[in-house]
């Protein structure tokens, strides 16, 4: 009986790994989430952490937000969109107990649309425009519907993200007219927001990392992004890297 338990425990390890490999294989069998070439602006290379030689790229995205104080609160993520995402927004924002009611709303797992070098980026303020060209432009519960709406897989990425609802009692700072209470959505995270760089691609980026520092300011100082990476988002909307190239800096 004891030996059977130990074998079952080993079986759990093997089964979990088999499930993981099947999941990865399924994800990479197709790229309905899009295949986009992003540059160092959107995928920046963090500096070495401790003694680790593993290379990761961190996804940097933006959105046209309701105000500069709330950079992760997109203008399009209003009460109507939140209701579409499954939040129960039926209680009027003028009711006395509404603050606590909306405070108890849970973070929702949704699908986000990230647009590369599109209209949202063109409309952004100059200081935000120069940081990243990847902008969150929409969200939904069904990825295939989003893909129907944003058909260009080379420009629109569909990935997972976390959205929360917040009750803004005094409206948006800087808004014209008297402050109006309103519901506003926040993008808490894009999942996952780090991409592992496997061999042989990591060799291309390794010496860039050795030069110290991780900030995007460095490539601004050097005249532009130093590399471009082709990334695909698969059937599970999880990314993987399929290519990297160095960009000659003037």
């Amino acid at each position, binding site marked *: 009986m*004891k*030996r059977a*338990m*130990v074998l*079952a*425990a*080993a079986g*759990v*390890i*093997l*089964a*979990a*790994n088999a*499930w*993981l*490999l099947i*999941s*990865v294989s399924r*994800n990479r069998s197709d790229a309905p989430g899009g295949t986009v070439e992003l540059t160092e602006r959107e995928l920046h290379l963090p500096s070495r952490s*401790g*003694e*680790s*030689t*593993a*290379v*990761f790229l961190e996804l940097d995205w933006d959105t046209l937000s309701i105000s500069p104080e709330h950079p992760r609160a997109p203008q399009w993520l209003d009460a109507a969109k939140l209701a579409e995402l*499954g939040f129960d927004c039926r209680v009027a924002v003028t009711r006395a*107990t509404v603050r*606590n*009611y909306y*405070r*108890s709303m*849970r*973070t*929702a*797992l949704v699908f986000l649309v990230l647009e590369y070098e599109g209209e949202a980026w063109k409309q952004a303020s100059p200081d935000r425009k120069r940081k990243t060209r990847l902008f969150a432009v929409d969200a939904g*519960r069904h990825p295939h519907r989003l893909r129907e709406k944003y058909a260009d897989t080379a420009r629109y990425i569909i990935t*997972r993200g*976390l959205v929360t609802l917040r009750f803004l009692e005094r409206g948006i700072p800087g808004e014209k007219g008297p402050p109006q209470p309103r519901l506003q959505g926040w993008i808490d995270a894009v*999942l*996952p927001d*780090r*991409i*592992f760089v*496997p*061999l042989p691609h*990591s060799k291309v980026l*390794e010496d860039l990392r050795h030069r110290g520092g991780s900030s995007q300011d460095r490539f601004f100082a050097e005249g532009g992004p130093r590399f471009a990476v082709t990334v695909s988002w698969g059937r*599970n*909307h*999880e*990314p*993987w890297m399929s290519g990297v190239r160095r960009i000659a800096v003037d």
Partner: protein
Amino acid sequence: MDLNPHRKAQQRVDRIRAFREELAELERERALTLTPEQRTRLEAHLEGSLAGLTAQFDVDVTESGKRISWGVRIASLLGSAAFFAALVLFLHRIWGALPTTAHFLILLTIPLLVLAAAEFTFRRKTGLYYTALLALTAGVGFVMELTALGSIFNMAPSAHALLAWGSFAVLVAHAYGLRLLLGAGLLLLCTYTASLFAIVEGAFWANSLERPESFIPAAVMVYAMPSLVYRRDRNDFGFVCRICGATLMFTAVLVLSIDGHTSYLRFPARTIETLYQFVGLVLCGGVVFHGVRLGRSGMVNTGALAFVVFLYVKLHAWWWAWMPKYVFFLLIGLTAVLLLYLFRRLRAGISERALT
């Protein structure tokens, strides 16, 4: 209570030592005097028993031996932690130079090898402590393995990993009779079931803590499990289940009694908080009563501690805002004195039951 063989052997050795000390005390007080023949036979029997237990289970027969054993255990704990840290840091250093296939194989092999080592020490009867240490390391290795693979393959965090880790811990705990690993496994499985509620709701699974009620069904099941599963409880697993179930239940109810907005119930938050304050106090009483009936001081203490926390939270809610602070703390002190009196009465009751 039928514990595993090593623990049982150590308990017998401890009883023999206590018996010898008590016998010497009785002889000094002239309450009992053995004849030389009786003494010789008794000593021969006790020495034989101790020799047999030492040879079979590597138990500590003296107090100083026990102290040295603890030293050895602490040294081996620190040593194994240092070896594990060295391995992890070494892998960090070479990780970038290895292909993904090598990453996968290395990560898969580590928990399997450590589990095999745990099995080896168990079969060799090296000591349950070393088996427990290796089993725990295998569990930590498995957690790190799935986390690292998820990171390498850019996977979003999945709740199903909790199911795998929890099942592994429960199975290994049953294989070697390890209570700590069982507790960890049960908590992981309870968190997994709570995360399923979040997934059904369309929320992110890791935010299951935002709805403490989602932990309650699993906590109740874990608490009730001993009467259904452990009919012959050789490792005292029933006690672990009850402590884990009760602690999880108290924590969930305590959070709900403080913040009613986190409830699934669609009542005003104040009503929900009052309801859960009442439920909490009843549950505490129930666990204390159950602990007294089973004769388990651990359960009585858990229930009593939760009762004190609930009571103080309630007193804070009632009095803190309007009362001068020195009067508040004076009343808390008086409440503590009252509770001390009640617990002493309760302890006297338990001792009386034990003597009769």
